[in-house]
């Protein structure tokens, strides 16, 4: 309403920080989402700190300490080679986050480009791009990823690339449908009337208005990419030179009766991490959705 008329003019920076504060106010109202964010901070800190403070080789073998249950010196116990599981889980967080973020970065970039082009131009461009998208969508994703990794080798780079290149269709479809409805809005017509180029319309007018659902979706996708990596490693198709929660689970299978802790802690790590990203996605959805935000 008209209550804002006599407020003084604000600097750009100040408005920006007010926007951020407004975002945080509505985000923080969602307690679980704040918890998700806290977990993410903890994980990131763990991944970074493990690398900095404890560059000690996680692959050493300690025959005297094989399969020890959780204790004061080994809070998560040790594995079949005598390694400290807490340490391994900490190293694993780095792999998971690396895979999750890089794969989603690739997938989102492709998805945004494909979705934006087909949603904005329509016609032939849309037909071709969307057929391609549909094709990827109907193929069972995980098995294709499995196949490609099996064929081309399972280095970290390959795993990231494959997950990234296989999971963009959701983003593309999402952005396309947003663009389709935004494209008809009067403010886009108005931009054309003042002579804005196609690129300008896409990047200055459509994307800022249509990106939020994509951000929410990407946050959920990080969780699912981490899960995919764990799945691949579980099946023995992860990068063998890295610690991975999935591979830890895979090995733990053999000892599940004798050493429950070998499965329990990496399993819990996967669960908590994926859940954190889902909670964050949920919180972002509430905070970025303008309809919910006013409440």
């Amino acid at each position, binding site marked *: 309403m008209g209550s804002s008329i006599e407020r003084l003019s604000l600097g750009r920076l100040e408005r920006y920080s007010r926007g951020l504060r407004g975002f945080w106010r509505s985000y923080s109202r969602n307690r679980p989402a704040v918890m998700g964010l806290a977990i993410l901070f903890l994980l990131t800190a763990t991944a970074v700190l493990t690398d900095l403070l404890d560059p000690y080789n996680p692959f050493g073998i300690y025959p005297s300490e094989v399969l020890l249950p959780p204790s004061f010196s080994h809070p998560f116990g040790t594995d079949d080679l005598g390694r400290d599981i807490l340490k391994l889980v900490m190293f694993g967080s780095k792999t998971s986050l690396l895979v999750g973020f890089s794969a989603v970065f690739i997938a989102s970039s492709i998805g945004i480009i494909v979705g934006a082009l087909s949603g904005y131009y329509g016609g032939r461009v849309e037909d071709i791009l969307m057929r391609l998208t549909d094709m990827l969508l109907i193929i069972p994703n995980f098995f294709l990823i499995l196949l490609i990794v099996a064929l081309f080798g399972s280095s970290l780079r390959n795993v990231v690339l494959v997950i990234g290149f296989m999971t963009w269709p959701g983003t593309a479809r999402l952005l396309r449908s947003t663009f389709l409805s935004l494209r008809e809005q009067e403010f886009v*017509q108005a931009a054309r009337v*003042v002579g804005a180029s196609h690129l300008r319309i896409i990047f200055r007018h459509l994307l800022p208005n249509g990106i939020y659902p994509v951000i929410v979706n990407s946050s959920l996708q990080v969780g699912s990419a981490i899960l995919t990596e764990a799945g691949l490693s579980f099946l023995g198709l992860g990068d063998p030179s890295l610690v991975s929660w999935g591979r830890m689970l895979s090995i733990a299978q053999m000892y599940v009766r004798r050493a429950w802790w070998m499965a329990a802690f990496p399993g819990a790590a996967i669960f908590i991490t994926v859940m954190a990203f889902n909670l964050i996605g949920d919180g972002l959805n509430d905070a970025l959705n303008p309809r919910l935000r006013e409440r």
Partner: protein
Amino acid sequence: MQPIVKVKGLKKYYPVEKSWIDKLLSRERRWVRAVDSIDLEIERGETFSLVGESGSGKTTTGLVLMQLVEPTEGEILFEGRDIFSLREEERRRLRRDMQMVFQNPYASLNPRMTVEEIVGEPLTIHLGLKGEERRGRVIELLDIVGLNPGKYYVDRYPHEFSGGQRQRIAIARAIALRPKFIVADEPVSSLDVSIQATILNLLQELKREFKLTYLLIAHNLAVVRYMSDKLAIMYLGKIMEKGVSEDVFQNPQHPYTKALISAFPDINPDVKRDRVLLRGEIPSPIAPPPGCRFHTRCPFRLEICERDEPMLVEVEDGHLVACHMVE
């Protein structure tokens, strides 16, 4: 003097999406005849109104004029040049002279841009203005459209403004490049009555100050009478009557015009109105009635109306009517 805008034989047909039955029977593609061969001349400095109900084609005409939609057939001359034969670069250059104000100020302003960015966009695109210079010009423009002092408003976002204020911002954007011609598509119909008047007055003032020419697209006849010098009444993609505004209002000739004027609820409690009530509703523009398009609802229909399409004929100086009754 050469008219600033001349529309010759303009047609705009939209294809109707074929259903699978149509495809199976390989039926011919059908068309929505939104605008079906109209001629207009708009003189420099006048306000020309296109009037009609929804589905009359008035909005489509405006969109074609603003090059937002390609015509199916016909020419549009702006200062003598056919705008659809121009090259991309020249067409963009033409945007400096032709601008538009949209119907819904809640939709026509990008919600994620500040007023400076919205009003400054044409300045950046066409004049390459940036930074303080652009900001200064935007503040100036805001003052002109009655959002003063402009510096209080320049950093705000659209949601901080009322409907009337938003329409002022949209108008500031439209006049930013000092255009010669502005299409105003229902510029006040989504605003409250008391605000409508202030926006209409602003448009009048700007017209005088900047020597503008308006094409006003509207369904509200009272608004049209207040604003226009000339007008054209449209029905199902055709012009039924056109001429000097006061001639048409004081001496309407076409039965449809009479019906429109008498249908308009007026606030004078003493007027004993004899309504020309029309039966039924506007037919589909996919298969408009043969002969005169209005004959299915016309209270004075003759036999000839179902067969022959009436031509626009001049009944008095510059007052044209398409009706067999007046021939």
